[in-house]
């Protein structure tokens, strides 16, 4: 077992336009990427649960060229609208850090 915070090289979030949030998890090399992918933990369903959105609203893309997984989902509030907490969307990654991967 391993927490993402201990095995990922990068774990970050950012706006993809004013209405969407995109979250990236990047691993060290192709071997780690493949092992993580094989666990089946990183999926659209995981992001849907962590970010409280319907799974069909999560665009989940493994990107093997960068040993990365990307999920893009709707923001809770559009960037800069009343109630937004994070205009750049760059501090929304923390719930992923403690996801456990059965490596």
């Amino acid at each position, binding site marked *: 077992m391993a927490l993402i915070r201990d095995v990922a*090289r*990068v774990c970050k979030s*950012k*706006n*993809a*336009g*004013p*209405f*969407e949030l*995109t979250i*990236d998890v*990047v691993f060290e090399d192709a071997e780690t990427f493949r092992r993580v992918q094989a666990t089946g933990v990183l999926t659209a369903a995981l992001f849907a649960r*962590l*970010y*409280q959105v319907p799974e069909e*609203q999560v*665009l989940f*893309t493994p*990107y093997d*060229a*960068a*040993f*990365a997984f*990307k999920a*893009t989902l*709707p923001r*809770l*509030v*559009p*960037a*800069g*609208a*009343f*109630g*937004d*907490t*994070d*205009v*750049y969307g760059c*501090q*929304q990654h*923390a*719930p992923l850090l403690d996801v456990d991967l059965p490596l």
Partner: protein
Amino acid sequence: MSKEIRLLSTSGILGYGFPEASLQAGLARKPDVIGVDGGSVDPGPHYLGSGKPFASPLAIRRDLRLMLRAAIAAKIPMVIGTSGGAGGAPHLAMVAQMVREIAREDGLHFKLALIHAEQDKAWVKQRAAAGRVHALARQPALTDATIDRATRIVGMMGPEPFITALDAGAQVVLAGRSSDPAPWAAATLRAQLPPAPGWYAGKMLECGATPAIPKGHDCLFVTVREDHVECEPTNPARRCTPLSVANHALHENSSPIHHIEPGGLLDTSECRFEAVSDRAVRISGMHWIPAERYTVKLEGVEQTGFRAICVCGTRDPLLIGRVDAFLDTVRQEVATKAAAFGVSPDSYQFGIRVYGRDGVMGAREPQRSALPHELGFVLEVVASESQEVASAVLAMARTNMLHTDFPGRLCREGNMAFPFSPSDIEVGAVYRFSVFHAAELDDPTEVFPIEYETL
């Protein structure tokens, strides 16, 4: 030798700064074009609405002066997209005025092109009525009412207006809202190179040295050839690695492999990344898939009111232990007292952000039940009518945060520590994104008029 073009980007945003030595190192490599991205939608709706830049004019002027001197001395074009941060008319005008002043002060002479991107509302309505404007990111269809309410609408141009301006002999091209890679794609298309590596190069250059490690605001040098791109930071303290460059494809895009641009889609799913030195990376295998219809993104904002805010905090464990009930009482008190001075609850929004609990993630915070030893609050009022109303309701909120009683209270002189006097901050007009749509164009240049000046 095969055909190539050499491109030098100074940083991620005009006004973010770059080391002068990095610019000199880039110039020593004889670039064909120098440029920088001038803006972003990322800092939020305020800048498009207010007409103000998000980088400071002092910092923008510093970067501009160094770049202009370099471009004129090297006799190469200089291209800037999304001038002034949001790329509307006032933003473009501000940067254009700086360029004129610098040219006069430094005795620089060149042909300047200004490419406008702010859109005429009548045109947007016509295009929407023709069924040729499409909602993006699950937004509602664009209505005349939304267009009328918009403070400002810009169109995000592709490379074609830049090509027109450069073909007309402009040496310095300042554009309004542009797709970030567009000025660079324009330079490569003009060099008779295919679109795929040109767009890919633009994706790298629009962020300056961001594809390099360590990250920082700095210069990036990119060489584009028929079937590949090579990128290298000019600062010897940084380097591009296959992984750092591959990772950049993730940046601010909804997909790492499909990048939608005006006129087509850049597909990076088959990209290969190879180190050509310990500091430079060659990227190949990108594809450009032309779109059936040429579209540009429209961005618009509307004003929702005026904001006032106040920052305070508590170190009282008795209050922290029952903070939700306390804040509910404050909200009720504020509603009652604001109504008493004639401000109805439907004329403002009052929010209390609780830092130390869920101030960063809001409703998505998974650990909001953990109680820390101190909590910070940002009180916020947005009133639709005026700053006066926003400030009045906020003042009442601040007073009630300070003095509202709660069961078990020992701190009877006051509940909140205020770090500032005055405690209340008038923020001014508040905007929200209201237009985020794609408009079909008959001609990629049709809504981006160009003005030329000889300086």
